[in-house]
């Protein structure tokens, strides 16, 4: 470190790494991860999500898991919270999970085909 500017740059970067400890951010991706979810491949979904989020360096996104979301037949599934707004994606594959990241989280477009509403219909 040689300058104050450098110190500030390091701080900006470091803050991302510890963001989790102030609790969840505004954007949360919650993966259903009970036995049913895991059997349906929820782990792979999580890994894909994490990988893609890392690629895009999305710092405000928290990935967590939860228990069975109540619709085991639609697993693997996730709920995406943006403040008050909730979108539920179902019947996911790792590729779809990556698309959710690139489309929904990066570009802000809902991946309609996999939302629970559209899917159930």
């Amino acid at each position, binding site marked *: *470190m*040689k*300058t*104050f500017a450098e*110190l*500030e740059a*390091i*701080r900006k*970067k*470091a*803050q*991302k*790494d*510890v963001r*989790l*400890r102030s*609790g*969840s*951010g505004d954007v949360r991706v*919650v*993966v259903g*991860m*009970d036995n049913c979810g*895991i059997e349906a491949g929820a*782990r792979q979904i*999580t*890994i894909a999500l*994490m990988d893609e*989020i*890392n690629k895009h*360096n*999305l*710092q405000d996104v*928290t*990935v*967590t*898991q*939860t*228990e069975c979301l109540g619709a085991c037949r639609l697993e693997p599934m996730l709920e995406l919270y943006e403040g008050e707004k909730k979108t539920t994606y179902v019947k996911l594959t790792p590729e779809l999970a990556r698309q959710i990241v690139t489309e929904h989280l990066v570009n802000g477009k809902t991946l309609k085909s996999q939302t629970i509403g559209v899917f159930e219909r």
Partner: protein
Amino acid sequence: MELYRSHVLVCGSTGCVSSDSLKIIDLFNKELEKHGLEKEIKVVQTGCFGLCEAGPIVIVYPEGSFYSQVKLDDVPRITEEHLLKGLIVHDLTYKEPGKKEASDSIDDMGFYKKQQRVALRNCGVIDPEILKEYIAYDGYAALAKVLTKMSPEEVVETIKASGLRGRGGGGFPTGLKWEFTSKAEGDVKYVACNADEGDPGAFMDRSVLEGDPHTLVESMTIAAYAVGANYGFVYVRAEYPIAVKRLQIAIDQARENDLLGEDILGSGFSFDMEIREGAGAFVCGEETALIQSIEGRRGMPKVRPPFPANKGIFDKPTLLNNVETFANINQIILKGADWFAGIGTEKSKGTKVFALGGKINNTGLLEIPMGTTLQETIFEVGGGIPNGKAFKAVQTGGPSGGCIPAEHLDTPIDYENLIALGSMMGSGGMIVMDEDNCMVDVARFFLDFTEEESCGKCTPCREGIKRMHELLDKITEGKGKLQDVDKLETLAKTIKKASLCGLGQTAPNPVLSTIRYFRYEYEAHVNEKMCPAGVCQALLQFLVIPEKCKKCGICAAKCPVNCISGVKGKEVYLIDQAKCIKCGACLEACPFDAIKKG
């Protein structure tokens, strides 16, 4: 740097380390690997979370789940359930006393709700051995601000305006100390940190050193800039190996990164520091004794004036503050004097860390705004008295603080209020006593400590504490007279008035305050030869309650000295007090509760 979806914070402070927290970290890492989670979840070794009673503690973020008394066996479960599946393991999270259910998150816990963590802000939040984590939480931003935007005078003015007072004992205004040192004449000046935490049970300084050592490095650098010093000493007791190690790591990291040493971050200002380890004499917490010890002499207090601000280490002007005081500096610089002055009471600003112990549910370290009442501290943050016992007194300020009784529980905590009650802030020890504590015995207990730790230099302290102790022995042994209580009081007052340093001037506080608030207990000891709390062995009596005695003779059979007589089935049993050794075997043996202690 990878992004993780979850952080597992494991306390790596002295308390938790001694109950295997380091092994817990290892096991977590192994378990994560087993489940292929090592790239998603990070295990972080942090400083102290404060609630040491519940250690070892593990907190999982982002949920903030607070796992207490974690055993190695618990680690696979937490990994599998919580980290893998996202299911909080409720039977392992902390259940606060008096609450039906465990809290899901640290934010819901009563222990933390009333707290406001300024000095301890990073303890239990960051990995103290990683500089970047400190930087992430605004580390060295205050130093940057000071070196780029403020003159030394402005720094001193800011600290003065904040109203910060020394957290080590006397509560001297920190800003004034800085001003005196900055104005003292001398080509060489020093900044020194008193980390010689000698009060038994107090560990706020250790917690900061173990949990957030960079805050000290940064604050001392700021102080050095303000007073015109270029070298600093941290006086730490050698009994704090983890603290010493982490502080040394922090110093080395700061040096490697140009945050310490020549020409700090190109500012032109230079400052470096070293650790001096003390041999753990209580009196070395006294500033003049500490200075002597740093100079390599026997730690004995010296007369002031001259004050360290004018003639300190090697007779050079020296700014000496303790760890907790320094730990407030960065925040004051960053958030402003007004912010700090907005916390607390009129004369006592900011927050204060207390080490809560004794008969209390939440034993541990807590930081509360000045002005919080004793009641709130003990019953809300501290979770009250265990086992439904009644509160009797709280002793604040370490071994030479006074005991404050229940009628003063509504007192807002600040420097002046505690002194008015015959106690003091000290470094922030807070020991709670319940109905089972004998106050005479309590006073004697504290004198055990101060008698041993008196440096032996001045007559009243060296000889007087010994005599107070002997008088208390006499009283607790039932050999005291009423004059002895008066004598004790006069002697205590003389020691207070005539001793050389803070140790002697405060050591009589436990005696004086207990006489002041619990005189009846002393009088019971000398007049009635009884200890109302049933603590003083020599005054204990085991008595058979005739109405309850079923004449079974079990007590007589259990008595190891055969001092219980009676005729089985015919006669109520009787204990011969002259022969009784007060072992209590009869009390335990009696199936009918017919034996009482009194």
